[in-house]
């Protein structure tokens, strides 16, 4: 078990005390298999209990611990220190207001998530007695990768559109809407249309693909959004160009 000292340079900001954010550097004896989150908990336990960050699962599934590590949106519980240099810079996720130190405000995302109506809107109410829906493995495959989002917000931190356009619903929330639209059990397209394809929706995306690059769960938001654009074009065509609105 080798231990190596590393300089962890962390952004600090306490709105009660600091006018602007500042950096503070800690020397941390990192074990070889540590992740950046381990270095932060070391600082909190041994050096400075006031260092503030979110975490829980330590297994890359709860989505709490997203941060900029060396300027890249990363889950700190899956960022192995051995993959970085002697000095590691840790900052809160880009594109979000900072609450304190590494903690960002998630309000905007939570509001957008809700607006997308991310729940099954069935054609017809189904009772327990009717049993589960039939959904073939192929139908499941249509949505599977897009169901994997852990809401870690790395994609928002990487998205150049969200950086400039606050109204953009953004990669994770749009992907979730796509996932429900494409679910064989769902018939909610009409209810989601305005948020999905209207102002702030899929058409704002300039298809840079940064979201898919940083996604730790291979959710492929960029693909979902592109597929969503196609669905929205077809929807437009059937509603306005087909005789009788496609009905």
């Amino acid at each position, binding site marked *: 078990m080798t231990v190596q000292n590393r300089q962890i340079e962390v952004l600090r900001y306490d709105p009660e005390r600091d006018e602007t954010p500042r950096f503070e550097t800690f020397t941390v004896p990192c074990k070889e298999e540590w992740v950046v989150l381990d270095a932060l908990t070391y600082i909190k336990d041994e050096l400075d209990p006031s260092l503030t960050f979110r975490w829980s699962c330590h297994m890359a599934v709860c989505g709490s611990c997203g941060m900029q590590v060396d300027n890249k949106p990363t889950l700190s519980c899956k960022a192995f220190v051995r993959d970085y240099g002697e000095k590691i810079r840790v900052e809160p996720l880009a594109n979000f207001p900072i609450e304190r130190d590494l903690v960002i405000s998630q309000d905007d995302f939570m509001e957008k998530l809700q607006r997308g109506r991310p*729940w099954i809107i069935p054609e017809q109410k189904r009772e327990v007695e009717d049993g589960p829906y039939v959904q073939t493995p192929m139908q499941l495959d249509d949505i599977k990768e897009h169901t994997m989002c852990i809401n870690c917000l790395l994609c928002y931190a990487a998205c150049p559109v969200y950086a400039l356009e606050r109204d953009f619903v953004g990669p994770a929330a749009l992907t979730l809407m796509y996932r429900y639209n494409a679910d064989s059990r769902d018939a909610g397209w009409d209810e989601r249309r305005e948020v999905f394809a209207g102002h702030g929706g899929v058409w704002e995306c300039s298809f840079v693909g940064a979201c898919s690059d940083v996604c730790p769960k291979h959710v492929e938001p960029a693909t979902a959004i592109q597929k969503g654009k196609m669905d929205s074009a077809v929807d437009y065509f059937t509603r306005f160009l087909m005789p009788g609105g496609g009905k």
Partner: protein
Amino acid sequence: MQVVETDVAVIGAGGAGLRAAIAVAETAPDLDVAVVSKVLPMRSHTVAAEGGAAGVIRGEDSLDAHFDDTVSGGDWLCDQDAVELFVEDAPKQLTRLEHWGCPWSRTPEGGVNTRPFGGMKIERTWFAADKSGFHILHTLFQTSLKYPSIKRFDEFFSAELLVDEGRVAGVVAIEVRTGEIWCFKAKSVIIASGGAGKVYPFTTNGAIKTGDGMAMAYRAGVPLKDMEFVQYHPTGLPGTGILLTEGCRGEGGYLTNKHGYRYLQDYGLGPPEPSPRKKAMELGPRDRLSQAFWHEMQKGNTIDTPYGEAINLDLRHLGEDKINERLPFVRDLATSYMRADPVHVPVPVRPVVHYMMGGIHTDIDARTSIEGLFAAGECAAVSINGANRLGSNSLTELLVFGDRAGKHAAQFAREAAPADNAARIDAQAEDCARKIENIYAREERKESTAELRRTMADAMEEGCGIYRDEGRIRSTCETLADLRHRLPGTALKDKSKVFNTDLLSILELENMLEVAESLAHSAYARSESRGSHQRLDHTGRDDDTFLKHSMAHYRGDQAPEIGYLDVVITKSPPGERLYGGAADAKAQKVEAAE
């Protein structure tokens, strides 16, 4: 102090809390529900569950079979009326979840697929690849968004229950973002705050699992039941404690010792067969498997790793395709955190603290002994888990009893007569606010919170581990008493009101110490071996004295008082727990006799 008036307050937004909130919203849309959670709902630890949720669905399966597996798996400490109700409601709850969009893995025909799980005689574990808990939690959370009566208070840390004359009146919480104290006045309260694995040093549990809700109920006078029963999961990654799901063995994985030998055949679980046989070998129950590890370690058959002794989980014979389809997360976790790709090499694993069978004492309607106070999920002990929970029963339990808690809490909120105690309740809330101010005011930092927490966790592993004896449990009890005494010596280095996690760690440590103390004292008093509670100094099961639930009662600064409550037996008298070939032989004998 901010005041919120609501009908039902739910503490916790994991699987149990969300299911309860939805049940209130569905059955009583006119009632307000406030969901108070210290983290965003999708960060709750239900998210980490991998394997799946049990419910009878296959034609060849039966509710009786699920009942029998659960009751014998729990070494007859389960309340059988609760288990009957549980197995009956399980498939319905899982079906609801399917209607809400849970992406369950499918059979080629489009039905819901099931996988075998430890201690279960038939495949009845519904799964969504190896991210079942993640999908269940997100499905519940997303579904909960559609009910306007559910109001969420995310990142609000519940500190204390408000209780007056045996009846609950609400809960006091800290808004983490501002440090402000909020008083939630509610007609009924549901605790769904999850487990307490963090009282141990090496656990699959996330940072948030500090037993807060258990401690709050305990302090308010509700007994904690069967706390000595702690489940060690046999396959955690050494070092981090990250879980590799039992699904690995359900899919056919082997456990081998340093000689490459499938050692479980030496512990009454054989004979070994090449592919998985239910309730045998690697698909034995977790308590037996973790105990077998301990014996292998004594014999020197385990593998020495930098993080302690381990054995191997060998999945190679399953092949890359099956591993990618059924266990993709496991492959990712083992490869990243252990640098062992299970497609190519066996993965070192060891038993790790995983689940609390014990918890807040409730009846089968999730009621506690305080009027209007309910509890469900891992924080509660109904008890369907008895002395050893079967894997995949817990996720289902969240749904079955979360739903019941919601319905009964709604009914209580609707029918309860108004209480005339506003002044006393306000005073209690003020007391709680003052307690927090006093922590801020402590000047001298004589003790380090982190150091006390480490000492507690090490003492728990030492005295209340897989095997226990009187002397070591006693010394753990002494350490815990000492730590409780030293706790007021902690102080805040961080005096900010904004997102003060230094403060929360002190409050969480206080909760953990109380929960740990109830656990250690219950373990001390139970001088028998049953399920996950194994005493080296009392090796047999003693039904005459201990076919009973332990009930730990809070007594302030003093050690808890341990009482007992009879187990409810409806149709399965205590018998011998048999697995593998021994179970087959017995079944044949019975058949021959008939």
